[in-house]
């Protein structure tokens, strides 16, 4: 019985067949995969826009596309990457798939709502794609008024609607995660036995739930203003466009933490597994996630230092901004300290973790520059800021995402990816990334404003370097797409726990059965307990 059954054991992948069984699934694992396909599609759409932007900037005089097209390119790059790739990226794919597994639950608390939130993302995405195909939108992803409400002649409303709908997708995911973590933990899974990935997602969910509605209502107001010409932000009626910026950044600054916190959660898992040690200062790292989520709501005004915001408010927001630096620093120091006296493996996910820590360190430290009033006046709205947030959102969030995808690929598919190719692509991505974005810090301090189609000749050398880096980066991103697909058929069979990690997700089959565990585990240890045996899942008793 055993030998025959192992071959054909029922998994979430083969339990049912057909398109309908996927499109109507309530299984968090299948929904995670639906998200994976969706955001991969949007990642490459956004990537095409990025490629065109970088190609255009090879020359200073705007030879490739018109200014109109260029403005649409950077707008759609931002909209697609932020709202349709980065925000759903880790939470909706890896989070969806692994959060219930890691806490020992059969599913999320609200599986139907989970499916609904995927549909909302798709519907939102269709609006956005319609806007792009119909002629594009040129307001910048920030939709500043009054340009977006009264001056732009592009598809603002369709895009805004898309973001509005996708926002509800994000809210529902967050709601689902919070309830799941509170109510669905396996017996013995106390808060301080939770993997840090779960802590990070809990913190992320708080932001999604508390921040996103404000973006939604802001979009509604912009929508009304553009449709009916009522004035909420319209200076012609005495409205204040700076109010729009306040409401927009109330969400959109914490939104950066929606992107980076889950990546930090992934990195905590990777660092622990691949050095075979408990995360140094577990409690501090866990609370740092929550602290970042909470403090992240107090700092939005640092996007408005030169906007005409009051001097007093500028000082308050700069002061508060520095408080976010502390929990971020705590995380980096603790990850590094975890390596001390560890048993460090160089498997691909760990390479991504190293890359993440390095790039996030640079991204975070340059955050100190832009939080600093005296410096920010000069560098805001320049390539310095562009470089800074790409270090966080690409160097941080995407490195974390790819690291997590490699780490859990064996669990998701039951197959190993090809290690050699994966290491190569991790290296290519790291190099390409730095070559793309490091020159942009220098460009920014020199005074190169962002969203410029045509620029002075003296900036060209640095732009050429950046574009060269972008081509390397593009190759790096295409490689995993190829070898992941290849591995589905040709990859080595992974087994339950290829990394000899401790989490509950490694104690079930790869790929997991429909209800995750044949028997709900009873948890007897904290996450990352490597004190007794190597591997074979020691968290469950």
């Amino acid at each position, binding site marked *: 019985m055993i030998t025959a059954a192992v071959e054909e054991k029922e998994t979430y992948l083969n339990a049912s067949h057909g398109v309908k069984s996927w499109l109507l699934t309530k299984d968090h694992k299948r929904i995670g995969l639906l998200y994976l396909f969706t955001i991969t599609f949007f990642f490459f759409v956004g990537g095409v826009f990025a490629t065109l932007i970088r190609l255009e900037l090879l020359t200073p005089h705007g030879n490739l596309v018109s200014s109109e097209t260029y403005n649409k390119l950077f707008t759609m790059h931002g909209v697609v990457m932020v709202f349709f790739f980065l925000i759903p990226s880790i939470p909706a794919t890896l989070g969806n798939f692994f959060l219930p597994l890691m806490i020992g639950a059969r599913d999320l608390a609200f599986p139907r709502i989970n499916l609904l939130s995927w549909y909302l993302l798709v519907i939102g995405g269709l609006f956005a794609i319609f806007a792009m195909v119909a002629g594009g939108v040129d307001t910048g992803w920030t939709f500043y008024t009054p340009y977006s409400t009264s001056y732009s002649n592009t598809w603002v409303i369709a895009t805004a609607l898309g973001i509005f709908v996708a926002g509800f997708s994000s809210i529902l995911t967050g709601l689902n995660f919070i309830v799941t973590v*509170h109510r669905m933990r396996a017996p013995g899974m106390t808060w301080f036995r939770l993997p840090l990935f779960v802590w990070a997602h809990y913190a992320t969910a708080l932001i999604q739930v*508390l921040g996103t509605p*404000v973006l939604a209502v802001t979009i509604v107001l912009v929508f009304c203003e553009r449709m009916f010409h009522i004035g909420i932000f319209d200076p012609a009626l005495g409205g*204040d466009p*700076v*109010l729009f910026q*306040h*409401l927009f950044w*109330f969400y959109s600054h914490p939104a950066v933490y929606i992107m980076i916190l889950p990546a930090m959660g992934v990195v905590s898992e990777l660092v622990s597994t691949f050095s075979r040690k408990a995360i140094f200062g577990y409690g501090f790292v866990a609370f740092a996630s929550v602290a970042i989520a909470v403090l992240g*709501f*107090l700092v*939005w*005004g640092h996007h*408005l230092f030169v906007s005409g*915001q*009051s*001097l*007093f*408010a500028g000082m*308050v*927001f700069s002061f508060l901004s520095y408080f976010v630096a502390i929990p971020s620093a705590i995380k980096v120091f603790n990850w590094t300290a975890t390596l001390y006296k560890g048993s460090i493996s160089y498997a691909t996910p760990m390479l991504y973790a190293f890359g993440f820590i390095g790039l996030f360190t640079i991204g975070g430290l340059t955050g100190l520059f832009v939080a600093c009033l005296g410096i920010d006046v000069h560098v805001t709205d320049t390539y310095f800021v562009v470089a800074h947030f790409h270090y966080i959102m690409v160097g941080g969030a995407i490195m974390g995402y790819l690291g997590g995808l490699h780490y859990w690929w064996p669990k998701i598919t039951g197959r190993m990816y090809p290690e050699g190719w994966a290491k190569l692509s991790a290296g290519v991505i790291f190099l390409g990334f730095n070559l793309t974005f490091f020159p942009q810090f220098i460009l920014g301090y020199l005074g190169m404003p962002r969203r410029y189609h045509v620029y002075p000749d003296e900036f060209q050398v640095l732009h050429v370097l950046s574009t060269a880096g972008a081509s390397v980066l593009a190759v790096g991103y295409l490689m995993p797409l190829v070898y992941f697909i290849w591995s589905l058929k040709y990859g080595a069979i992974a087994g339950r726990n290829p990394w000899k990690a401790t989490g509950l997700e490694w104690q079930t089959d790869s790929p997991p059965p429909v209800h995750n565990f044949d028997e709900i585990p009873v948890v007897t240890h904290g996450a990352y307990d490597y004190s007794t045996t190597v591997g074979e899942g020691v968290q469950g008793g």
Partner: protein
Amino acid sequence: MTTPHVDSVKTYAAVWIALLLMTGLTTGVAYIDLGAFSVVIALTIAACKMALVALFFMHVRHSTKLTKLVVLGGLLWLAILLSLTMADFATRGWLGA
């Protein structure tokens, strides 16, 4: 399964009458010129009404600590949004800038 706490109809009716009285009160007081205090009183009465609805009609007083925390957290976040936004608009022109 724990049985829910069933409040008496009397309790609900008392809360209902209190709410109606407060509605009358806030409307009446609005016509008295109290300067800046008008707003304070209106908002205080509104807060009391909200508390009654939440505690009794929405059963917050019988709820878990977690539910109470969620309610307070929501109000705190609203306060953050309003106060830090006003930190700009109320201080335009301060510090001679």
